[in-house]
């Protein structure tokens, strides 16, 4: 139905290579998220999928058919734009039915679909309004309604929530997830918000400099990042990176004036490469107040840490201290009642710690 195969797609503008060989195989009904910093090529890739731009080389298959050279209207793809791109002079009903009108769907059929879509998105009371008379959230719904009306094979979402305020964004995020559950249509979704990526996606493609750095489930991306870029991009606050000496498979960190050897889960791989300095990667939630963690018993270390800043966030408290002269973030329970100050007793869990090559930033283990 709506599977999408992106095979070695490249895009150059003159000498500049925006996309350098993208390969992604999207299953029918899958929710794929393209995530990456601005300028990584994710919007260009989106436009190529939509047919608004031509790929320089490579092919694109939709439901098993080559559509590399097909015009946008022949691809059966609908898109929700960041700016919503609602037609300013048409009312909501006409905005939703315009695509059907262009495809010569009879009037009664159009009215029925508009009705159905409006009910689904709870905008049936707005059908006579112009886009300028709608709030941001309502415009967002209309934009989605316009895409839904045509029941396309694939939906494209180009940063659809970035113009909404924080509360509405969370609300619409849930709506989109529900909608996907209900319709089961393939979705390709571009965002630079890693929380959106983690919460919505079946699979995430993390992009940088026109290359897919890693393609995997949110869990794989979060827990098994392929390189320092992916590890640093996903997660908020990001993973802590500390350059460390490695001795006997243990990373040496200096905290509050004392040195501590931390046991690494991948000592063999580091030894096999003959490295004695690596970048240690450890998530903030692995640095906590002392608490029992029976399954990771072997990986727990206690040490004291000087907290420079403590940021209570309600559910968590973020505290910032230093290891080896580098800021590290830790995620504490507010119940621990931590305050800024010297020599706070903490617990470090290295069961999921990772190590990166200092030169290349690639994951060692």
């Amino acid at each position, binding site marked *: 139905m709506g599977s999408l195969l992106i095979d070695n797609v490249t895009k150059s503008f003159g000498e500049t290579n925006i996309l350098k060989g993208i390969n992604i195989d999207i299953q029918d009904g899958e929710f794929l998220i393209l995530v990456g910093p601005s300028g990584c090529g994710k919007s260009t890739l989106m436009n190529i999928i939509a047919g*608004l731009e031509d790929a320089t080389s490579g092919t694109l298959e939709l439901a098993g058919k080559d559509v590399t050279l097909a015009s946008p209207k022949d691809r059966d793809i609908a898109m929700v*734009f960041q700016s919503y791109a609602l037609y300013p002079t048409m009312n909501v009903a006409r905005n939703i039915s315009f695509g059907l009108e262009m495809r010569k769907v009879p009037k009664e059929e159009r009215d029925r679909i508009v009705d159905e879509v409006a009910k689904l998105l709870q905008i049936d009371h707005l059908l006579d309004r112009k886009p300028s008379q709608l709030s941001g959230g309502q415009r967002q719904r209309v934009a989605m309604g316009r895409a839904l009306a045509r029941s396309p094979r694939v939906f494209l979402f180009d940063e659809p929530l970035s113009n909404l305020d924080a509360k509405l964004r969370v609300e619409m995020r849930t709506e989109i997830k529900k909608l996907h559950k209900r319709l089961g249509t393939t979705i390709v979704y571009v965002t630079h918000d890693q929380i959106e990526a983690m919460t919505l996606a079946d699979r995430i493609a993390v992009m940088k400099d026109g290359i897919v750095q890693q393609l995997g489930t949110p869990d794989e991306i979060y827990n098994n990042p392929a390189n320092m870029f992916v590890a640093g991009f996903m997660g908020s606050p990001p993973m802590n990176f500390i350059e460390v000496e490695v001795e006997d498979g243990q990373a040496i960190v200096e905290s509050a004036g004392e040195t501590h050897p931390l046991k690494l889960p991948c000592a063999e791989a580091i030894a096999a490469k003959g490295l004695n300095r690596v970048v240690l990667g450890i998530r903030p939630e692995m640095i906590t107040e002392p608490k029992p963690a029976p399954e990771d018993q072997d990986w727990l270390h206690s040490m004291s840490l000087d907290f420079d800043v403590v940021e209570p966030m309600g559910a968590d408290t973020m505290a910032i201290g230093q290891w080896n002269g580098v800021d590290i973030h830790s995620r504490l329970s507010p119940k621990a009642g931590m305050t800024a100050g010297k020599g706070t007793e903490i617990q470090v869990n290295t069961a999921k710690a990772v190590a990166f090559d200092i030169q290349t930033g690639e994951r060692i283990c």
Partner: protein
Amino acid sequence: MVANRSFNIGRLFIYACLAAFALFYLAPLYVMLTTSFKDIEEIRSGNLLALPQDPTLYAWIKAWSSACTGSECQGLAPFFMNSVKIVVPAVIISTVIGALNGYVLSKWRFRGSDLMFGMLLFGCFIPFQVILLPMARLLAELGLANTVTGLVLVHVIYGVAFTTLFFRNFYVSVPTELVKAAQLDGASFFQIFRHIFLPVSLPIFTVTIIWQFTQIWNDFLFGVVYSGPGTQPITVALNNLVNTSMGGKEYNVDMAAAVIAALPTLLVYIFAGKYFVRGLTAGAVKG
């Protein structure tokens, strides 16, 4: 208190200046109108600024239907119609072409489209005199010399540079994502223009039509060079009327004729002037 008083004096000065300038600019119009309603005796004997003592339509009727323009004595009426026949198609055609050009140059960029726009822009700065001879030659080749069609063609060609500039700059402010959305909705090049762009274009159409109308109606040079005896526009006829003297000069007829020639553009500004200003600033405010 002191600040308030100096503010008032400043205001007073400004209003006085404005009033003085307004009077200065309106004076000729006043003289033209009053003179056109006087008879020739009163003009010879009376004061230039005095109101007509015995208002008469004689001069207006003569200017419209029987004053001599060269050897013919039919008044301005036939030439007024010539001007209408030139202006209406020239305005419509140049505006439509400009709208399509602007649409393409802002939303359907192609290799060299910026260069093309630059060259069109250059057309705005070409003086009339430069193209007189080549254009005369071209019109002769086309068999359009001394015809209304020929004059329409000249004005369309000359106007397209301006109308393209207006529309292109207006359409640049329309979000390109609307075009993309409409493309995905399956709309074609012309369908997008008709359904998305035309409905938002009222301000710029107003500006362009007013601009083109005044330019072409007021044109004298092209009119005098490319017209024949039966196809002269009103500006040329007015010139001939004023320069044709049989016996004494009839200032009242000259004045009435000048007002008739200027009337359409005057009316356009009086009735559509505010839309003109609004249209010019519409893009700026919307950003």
